[in-house]
């Protein structure tokens, strides 16, 4: 891992992108530093997410988030190479892989930067749904950081936007399904036993479609918690966990 490459990943993404595109001798150092950034940054963020429940989930989160990123890249890289070639950028596979790794490395460094702030917010009692939103926001910002490097790496010329959109499409599809398989990441503290991987329940696409359909059908009905089904000790206020209490208060005590 090179400190100089790390600094350039954050402060001079254009140089990194150019080095990947031009097949510079630095490509190897860029790839190895990016891999280390992914391992460190994504693990830190995953561990913080896991700390919402605590216990083994911290370790699970620290393992699963970088695993999701790397698995997505490994599966997507050949598609990136093919798309780039078809859309006017017939670069060597190593250039495409280095560019993808550098983009993911940069986003992981952004996640690492968010990790302490998220940890503080969780420690101050942030609820489950708010935590999920904040984490999604962090992922979004990290995604933009990656995109800025990727777009620079694609260079000027015809098909740049199309290539970028194609890359994003492939990454979202593969990344969404990979993340779906490796869930859960953010687990409620009241969950007694948390598995490393939840049972397969459909796919990422099915879940998105189901959620969209539900939102459309039930948009005019007030949200109610089915208290009896979720936990036996719910009537005992002392047994309510923080986020269930938050949900209860949100619903006006219903």
């Amino acid at each position, binding site marked *: 891992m090179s400190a100089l490459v790390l600094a350039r990943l954050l402060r001079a993404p254009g140089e990194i992108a150019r080095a990947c595109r031009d097949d*510079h*001798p630095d*490509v*190897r150092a860029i790839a190895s530093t990016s891999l280390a950034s992914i391992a460190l940054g994504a693990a830190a963020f995953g561990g913080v997410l896991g700390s919402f429940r605590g216990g083994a989930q911290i370790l699970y989160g620290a393992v699963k988030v970088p695993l999701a990123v*790397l698995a997505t890249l*490994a599966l997507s890289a050949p598609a990136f190479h093919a798309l780039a070639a078809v859309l006017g950028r017939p670069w060597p596979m190593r250039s495409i892989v280095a560019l993808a790794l550098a983009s993911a490395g940069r986003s992981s460094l952004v996640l690492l930067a968010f990790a302490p702030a998220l940890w503080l917010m969780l420690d101050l009692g942030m609820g489950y749904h708010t935590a999920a939103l904040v984490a999604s926001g962090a992922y979004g910002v990290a995604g933009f950081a990656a995109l800025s490097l990727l777009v620079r790496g694609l260079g000027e010329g015809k098909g740049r936007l199309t290539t970028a959109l194609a890359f994003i499409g492939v990454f979202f599809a593969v990344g969404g399904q990979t993340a779906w398989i490796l869930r859960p990441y953010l687990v409620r503290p009241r969950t007694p036993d948390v598995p490393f991987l939840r049972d397969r329940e459909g796919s990422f696409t099915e879940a998105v479609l189901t959620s969209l359909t539900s939102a459309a059908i039930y948009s005019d009905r007030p949200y109610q918690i089915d208290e009896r089904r979720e936990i036996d000790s719910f009537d005992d206020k002392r047994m309510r966990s923080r986020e269930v209490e938050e949900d209860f208060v949100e619903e006006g005590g219903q």
Partner: protein
Amino acid sequence: MSLRDLSVLYLVAGICCAVAIYRSSPAGGSRAAVSAALAVPLWPLWAPIALTAKRAADVPKGAAGGALARVKAALAEAVEASRGTPLASVLPAEAAARIEAEVERRVARHAELEALLRKEAFDLARAEARVREVERASGSGRALATARLDLDNVRRLSSLRDRDARALEELCALAEALRTQVTVARFSGSSAADIGGIVSEVQARVEGLGAALEAEESLRAEEPIET
């Protein structure tokens, strides 16, 4: 095919890539072992890089390789000396990294030329001997023209290599002068403008080196092949 079978196949592919990476590594040792170990779980990402990426360390140990090491050391020391002072604005780390990257690229090109001229087909003495042989044999005008063209090309490549080596040596000296000037400016409290000139000259030399090589290439590409 079950997930287990797929995992086994993935692992086997990873091990094969790890072996290939270890065997192809020029240095060997712990770095090669780490690179090979990384390939086992991450071979779709790491194998294309490790097996095919150009290596900065492939720069030859000859004069050009020595020049690169000197330039790198001089730039690193100059950046370190200017850090935390107003001089840092004239020679930021990014600018030094760009200069270093360009010099590395030129040294790699020089190494390619050196390797090419070591081959028998590009041997100057052989090309000269060939021309003399054709002249003695009173061969056809076409054969003589071809032999002379071959000799001319080899001479051009040789002069390119020599010019590269001279330019790199001059650049090396300039980078070392920059290091000295930055150090003097730091301790004498000189302003950034005092070293701005030499920084610009280093950058201009690097750019000029690249432009000269590219101009030579375009000239050769435009010339018709005479037969």
